């Protein structure tokens, strides 16, 4: 099944999740999943609603611990116990609704949890001017233009919000960027823009995991596709091996591999 294409996944990949099984009580959410991503690769994680995509990613982010299986990061076995730990080793997730605080400004969101401070006397204050400048410049570097870093996130479009969350991950040195349905609520033009930011992240040698149930959103940009259905890995395919329709059939189960 593994082809001789560009990205071979093994324990030496940037991320390798081996034989991951997750049980919630008597329900098996995931069964022996192997999944990995390499630097400079966009990996699509496809599956219908409830197939287990989110569970798999939550295991990688340290929200859930797997019932069995092992995660390897940069070739070494790791145990990730919380989203904070995931972030510390360089795994950054962009969730659809849980990425940004709409009532706060762009720069405050950008630096949330990693605020820059300057001391006036013994007391640390927020270095707002510096944060706004760095925020604007670093977003500009990856091709995202904003009107003002002090603008509230709530007044931005869905695509702009996604781009800011992506830009934040890139700026703070993420090695793996996990995008959860980044394009599902966007217009065609905005989708195209967000895809261009993803390509930009790939060209910076980041690993991108693109989670979606809609193969059309990811077909053009992904280097490889992993399809899961009802908690089981249907298969992993590389660019050009299968058509969009073939993959869609694999997601729904209309076609067996």
């Amino acid at each position, binding site marked *: 099944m593994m082809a001789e294409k560009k990205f071979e996944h093994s324990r030496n990949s940037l991320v390798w999740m081996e034989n991951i099984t997750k049980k919630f009580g008597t329900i098996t959410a995931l069964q022996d999943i192997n999944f990995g991503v390499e630097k400079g690769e966009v990996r699509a994680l496809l599956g219908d609603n409830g197939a287990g995509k989110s569970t798999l990613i939550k295991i990688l982010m340290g929200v859930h611990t797997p019932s069995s299986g092992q995660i390897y990061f940069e070739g070494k076995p790791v145990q990730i116990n919380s989203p904070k730990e995931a972030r510390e080793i360089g795994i950054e997730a962009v969730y659809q609704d*849980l990425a940004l*605080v709409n009532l*706060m400004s762009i720069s405050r969101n950008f630096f949330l949890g990693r605020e820059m401070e300057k001391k006036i006397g013994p007391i640390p*204050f927020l270095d707002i001017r510096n944060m706004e400048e760095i925020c604007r410049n670093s977003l500009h570097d990856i091709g995202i233009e904003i009107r003002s870093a002090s603008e509230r996130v709530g007044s931005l479009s869905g695509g702009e919000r996604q781009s800011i969350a992506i830009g934040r991950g890139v700026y703070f040195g993420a090695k793996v960027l996990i995008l959860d349905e980044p394009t599902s609520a966007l217009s065609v033009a905005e989708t195209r823009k967000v895809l261009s930011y993803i390509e930009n992240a790939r060209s910076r040698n980041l690993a991108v995991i693109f989670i979606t149930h809609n193969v059309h959103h990811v077909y053009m940009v992904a280097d490889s596709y992993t399809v899961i259905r009802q908690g089981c890995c249907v298969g992993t395919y590389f660019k050009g091996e299968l058509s969009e329709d073939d993959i869609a059939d694999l997601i729904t189960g209309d076609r067996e591999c």
Partner: protein
Amino acid sequence: MAVGGYLFGGLAMAGQPLLGFLLALVVTALLGVINGVILVSTGIPSFIVTLGTKYLYRGLLWVITAGTMLQTVDRLPMYNVLNGRLEFLNQFFKQANFRNSLIWLLVLVIVFQIILSRTRFGNHVFAVGGNAGAALGQGVNVRKVKILCFAISGLMAGISGILLFSQYYTVRVASGDGMDLYAIAAAVVGGTLITGGAGSIWGALIGALIISMLRSGVVLMNISFIPADNFEAIVGVTIILAAIFNNYLRNRN
């Protein structure tokens, strides 16, 4: 508020005003921490938590004090420092009664406005109020922020109890009852979003001023169909109008 008043008043009457002052601050902050811990460990809405503990704390106070009110005729210098008459302001106005609490108010407003808008903790307060999930995702310790907010809230109630006793030399179990809703009203009138994530200390100050002015104004105007006891009706109308207006302002930018 009553807890702060009793602790300060009781110990001051026993000759330990400074100890009473510190203990009142510590205990009220701790009661706030308990509120916060209940909130983060049960996940029930904060309004319900504080509504419950408000009755509980007052009940405990009633048991401990046997319901007796404290009253003193001593004029300790500490009372004067905390909430004596501000003569240098009063001399300009006939029958004015400005008190030191005005200074404490302004100091606290400035300090907390700076904390809220210019520090990491303030940033986290807005983030937790606006989208706790996003804050958690970015590594903000949501539980800690919530508990700290409740501790500050308890502390401020304690300070108000101390100031109240310093001014009137008396405290009852029911002291400050009903002030909680005025506090919420002041915050809402001043632009605080009841759903969280937006607001300011300046705004709350202005809200408190508007409500207090209405109270005095309604009494002084002596409107026949609005007796002084009924000024709540005016507050009610103000809250709704202010909320509509704030909504309008918020949607406009």
